[in-house]
């Protein structure tokens, strides 16, 4: 099976998967950050923030990811001139595309993270926040020390699902020229139409290798870290 050795030698398949992982991890961190802020807005007592949070989730969740990513490139960069990398650098195009993809993936998945965290917040009985307020913790400290730590632990399983979706959705970054795994797959398929199923199989297995452990890990963590009541 020369195509397998070509995957490693000629096409830098591992490098492509590395890009996929990097894209996923960085986007996941930003999505977690943004998603947490959005979730906090939705549970805050301030009406305006609630509305903004709700709008964010509903608009972003109902927009196709491809649109979001393409908008980052065509809209933000080409139209508005927003660039996220050093223009004088040799790797400007690559860096900028990668970062625009991270932006799009983060903003998009943040909506799902926010929903996961909100479902986690719903696992925390009302009495917990009341007890926190009763000892004099203000709103943000009540969230930080009492509600969110329990909410995250209740949200581990759905957060795992978001991470798995994000891993697979990172392939959309190829439409704005990020050479992650699916972009390389496309090139390989074009060059080796004779073994197209093998190529397809290699990449499919690659993604399963990435996502399966994540699923197992998050399921076991969600059991191990569940708050006992």
């Amino acid at each position: 099976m020369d195509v397998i050795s070509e995957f490693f030698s000629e096409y830098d398949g591992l490098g492509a998967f590395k890009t996929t992982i990097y894209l996923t991890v960085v986007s996941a961190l930003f999505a977690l950050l943004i998603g947490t802020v959005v979730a906090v807005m939705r549970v805050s007592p301030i009406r305006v923030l609630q509305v903004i949070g709700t709008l964010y989730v509903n608009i972003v969740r109902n927009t196709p990811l491809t649109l979001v990513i393409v908008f980052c490139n065509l809209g933000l960069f080409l139209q508005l001139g927003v660039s996220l990398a050093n223009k004088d650098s040799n790797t400007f195009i690559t860096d900028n595309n990668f970062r625009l993809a991270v932006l799009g993936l983060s903003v998009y998945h943040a909506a799902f993270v926010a929903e996961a965290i909100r479902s986690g917040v719903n696992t925390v009985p009302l009495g917990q926040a009341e007890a926190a307020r009763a000892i004099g913790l203000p709103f943000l400290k009540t969230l930080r020390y009492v509600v969110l730590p329990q909410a995250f632990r209740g949200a581990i399983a759905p957060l795992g699902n978001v991470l798995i979706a994000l891993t697979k959705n990172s392939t959309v970054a190829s439409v704005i020229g990020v050479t992650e795994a699916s972009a390389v797959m496309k090139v390989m398929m074009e060059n080796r139409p004779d073994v197209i199923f093998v190529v397809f199989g290699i990449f499919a297995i690659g993604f399963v290798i990435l996502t399966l452990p994540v699923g197992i890990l998050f399921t076991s963590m969600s059991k191990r870290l569940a708050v006992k009541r």
Partner: protein
Amino acid sequence: MSDSVDTVTTTGLVALQDVQKHFGDLHVLKDINLSIGRGEVVVVIGPSGSGKSTLCRAINRLEPIDSGSITLDGQPLPSEGKRLANLRADVGMVFQSFNLFAHKTILQNVTLGPMKVRGLSKAEAEKKARALLERVGVTAQAEKYPAQLSGGQQQRVAIARALAMDPKVMLFDEPTSALDPEMIKEVLDVMVDLASQSMTMVVVTHEMGFARRAANRVVFMADGQIVEEAEPQKFFTDPQTKRAQDFLSKILTH
């Protein structure tokens, strides 16, 4: 000479004046006037739905009121934000369902407030917490999580958690009604002990033994109103109003 319509009435540590509260169309607190002196122990009793919990929760503004005023130490309750949080720190609250922080150990439950609200160092907070846990008799459980404790132990920890803030007044909303009978006494003993050390307390409870032993006054509520107030002995043996007589005959025949 002295026209005794003096404005300088000796208001209590906690004073409620003409307090009104609705939940939608339901009028749950009607014209509540109640003054609780420093060191006084007031037991609130009354039928289910009469507004006892709401009264308790109004005192630390977990439930905002529609009109009237509530003062603590002469200061009206702030409406929101940092100052309200500070007020709550001065009012200890013990819930029927304990509400210990489920993800924190017993020790952490007691140190959280002192560290994050009062700004104590971890060492100071832990020293204080251990002393309080000793006082309520759960020292051995300090490193455990709430779910590993019995209901009676959890409620005693909840009392320690509230005491750790050095509150001016303690509110108890049916602290023993979620407990198995054999655990009620251990919690009541802690409360009696607290009362004897002149803590100001508002206690919603149907434990007449506690009322007789520790209360200075019984406040009887029905349909959102304070219907009768008296010393425990007098209230239980010689209630004045029909509502109180009916209520007592029901709980006494059980």
